[in-house]
């Protein structure tokens, strides 16, 4: 099997340009971030931060300084509110399970939306085993949560609401403050969690201004290293830990702290917030150039998610009709453009992206979708290259489709 992959890689030889737009699923780490991390592997702070020797104290100092920076960017009140976890998957698991377990005597109802990431959806489903029920709030055609349905769904038994600030697939910026108000008006004891992995570093996001109880942030989604994330837990909110083991500086996650990754996350945050407006404008310009360019050259397509200011600056998601997504991602890869698709083709479950289905896309529209995210490192030339490649790729795959499936 590895032999096959080697052949596949060989088929990519001779590319003149490569543009990676699959930030949703992983990303390259910028040199500046790697440089910031490297000394912490072998030069300093490689000790356990809870132990009484120099490398241990260095680690403690390093972790606290990194925490301080991230706490400031998030708008936290105290450093204890930042809890590092090995990623946003773990932070979401901690938020949902940890809250459910600590609140189990007050009620068994959880409310999420139909378009939450799998990290939230599957945990909520899993909690059924422990007697919890989950209500999934529907969204409109652009991915905005039905706030009226949200209001109706909250009662005295509701212990937790989890709604993403920005949808990870279609970039919808939710009215989180309004949603939070609705929830707290009906039940002040309900804990409000938001997965802010796609908001942090990309839109104005401040936990104190918003007033949320819990918020998930992710390192790799802001071009930090993978394997690092954090859960903001507002002072006074009780979340139970979900793993047992040796607790160190992180009271909600046992195990030895990964100091280099924490440093990397903090450095990536610094870079995202340094010249924040400039970075975000750059992304927005490239996002719109990509969307407009594709719309000008490729017929029979649909933009998934809202336009303009209601859409996160980095997200592009387009459905190409009569064009199967997996085939399209391979065709684009062979031309040096790396993207992902909401197609179900890699699974036998025959279900394409649940987010696209929830906003009313037909299955074949969802199978033909591409998800792309731009960063501050992408250039106009990169986007021009992508815009040169996409129309030809779509045309070739549509040529294979021919009249199949056209009624």
């Amino acid at each position: 099997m590895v032999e096959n992959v080697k052949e596949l890689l060989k088929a990519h030889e001779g590319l003149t340009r490569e543009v990676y737009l699959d930030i949703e699923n992983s990303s390259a780490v910028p040199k500046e971030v790697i440089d910031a991390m490297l000394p912490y592997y072998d030069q300093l702070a490689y000790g356990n931060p809870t132990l009484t020797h120099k490398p241990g104290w260095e680690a403690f100092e390093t972790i606290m300084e990194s925490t301080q920076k991230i706490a400031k960017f998030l708008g936290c009140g105290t450093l204890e509110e930042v809890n590092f976890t090995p990623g946003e998957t773990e932070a979401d698991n901690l938020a949902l399970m940890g809250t459910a377990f600590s609140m189990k005597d007050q009620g068994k109802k959880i409310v999420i939306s139909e378009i939450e990431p799998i990290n939230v959806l599957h945990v909520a489903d899993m909690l059924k085993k422990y007697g919890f029920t989950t209500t999934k709030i529907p969204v409109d055609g652009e991915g905005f949560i039905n706030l009226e349905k949200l209001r109706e769904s909250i009662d005295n038994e509701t212990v937790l609401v989890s709604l993403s600030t920005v949808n990870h697939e279609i970039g919808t910026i939710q009215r989180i403050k309004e949603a939070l108000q609705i929830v707290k008006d009906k039940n002040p004891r309900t804990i409000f969690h938001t997965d802010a992995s796609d908001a942090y570093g990309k839109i104005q996001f401040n936990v104190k201004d918003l007033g949320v109880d819990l918020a998930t942030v992710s390192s790799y989604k802001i071009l930090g290293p993978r394997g690092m994330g954090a859960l903001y837990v507002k002072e006074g909110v009780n979340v139970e830990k979900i793993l047992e083991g040796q607790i160190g500086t992180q009271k909600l996650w046992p195990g030895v702290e990964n100091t280099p990754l924490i440093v990397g996350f903090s450095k990536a945050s610094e870079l995202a917030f340094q010249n924040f407006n400039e970075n975000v404008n750059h992304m927005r310009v490239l996002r719109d150039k990509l969307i407009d360019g594709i719309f000008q050259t490729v017929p029979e397509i649909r933009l998934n998610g809202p336009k303009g200011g209601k859409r996160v600056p980095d997200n592009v998601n387009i459905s190409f009709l009569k064009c199967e997504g997996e085939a399209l991602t391979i065709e684009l890869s062979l031309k040096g453009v790396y993207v992902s698709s909401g197609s179900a083709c890699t699974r036998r479950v025959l279900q394409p992206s649940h987010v696209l289905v929830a906003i009313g896309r037909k299955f074949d529209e969802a199978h033909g979708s591409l998800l792309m995210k731009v960063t501050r490192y992408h250039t106009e030339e990169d986007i021009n290259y992508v815009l040169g490649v996409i129309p030809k790729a779509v045309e070739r795959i549509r040529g294979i489709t021919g009249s199949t499936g056209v009624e």
Partner: protein
Amino acid sequence: MIVSRMPLPYNPKVLELFRNPKNLGKMEDATVTAVAGNPLCGDMITFYLKINDQDIIEKASFESYGCAANIATSSIVTEMIRGMKLENAWKISWKSVAEAVGGLPSIKFHCGVLAVGALHRAIRKYYKNKGVSPNWLPQESTFEEKQALEEEELAKMLEKRVKAAEEK
């Protein structure tokens, strides 16, 4: 059940057929055409066969809405059956199709199954149109035909479910 998500290590043969599919396109003078699958499920195949009066497939072509494996297996089937008597083409199994493309990742087996399902349908349709029923042609649907039908039924069910949700 715990399932890991594997990458798709398509082999060079699949990649080659994906990049340069053989016998691609609609055939205007086809004796018979048949489809299998549904775009709602993300894969669908159309076969066009030109059959002479000795029941030999003179040429075959395809169109496919689907992934690289779907394209490759459809294309290879049209290669395999050219010049074949229908009785022999009928005997091609999805496993031999998978072998002919150098093997498929297990989650892509259904692409081979769908291609053979479409071929069986084309052969049945041909004899039905002709009003002949050769003794080697079984009355009962083959495994591949059943699988194709099952996928299409599933697509209909999904479509109904989506429509019901829209009306809610």
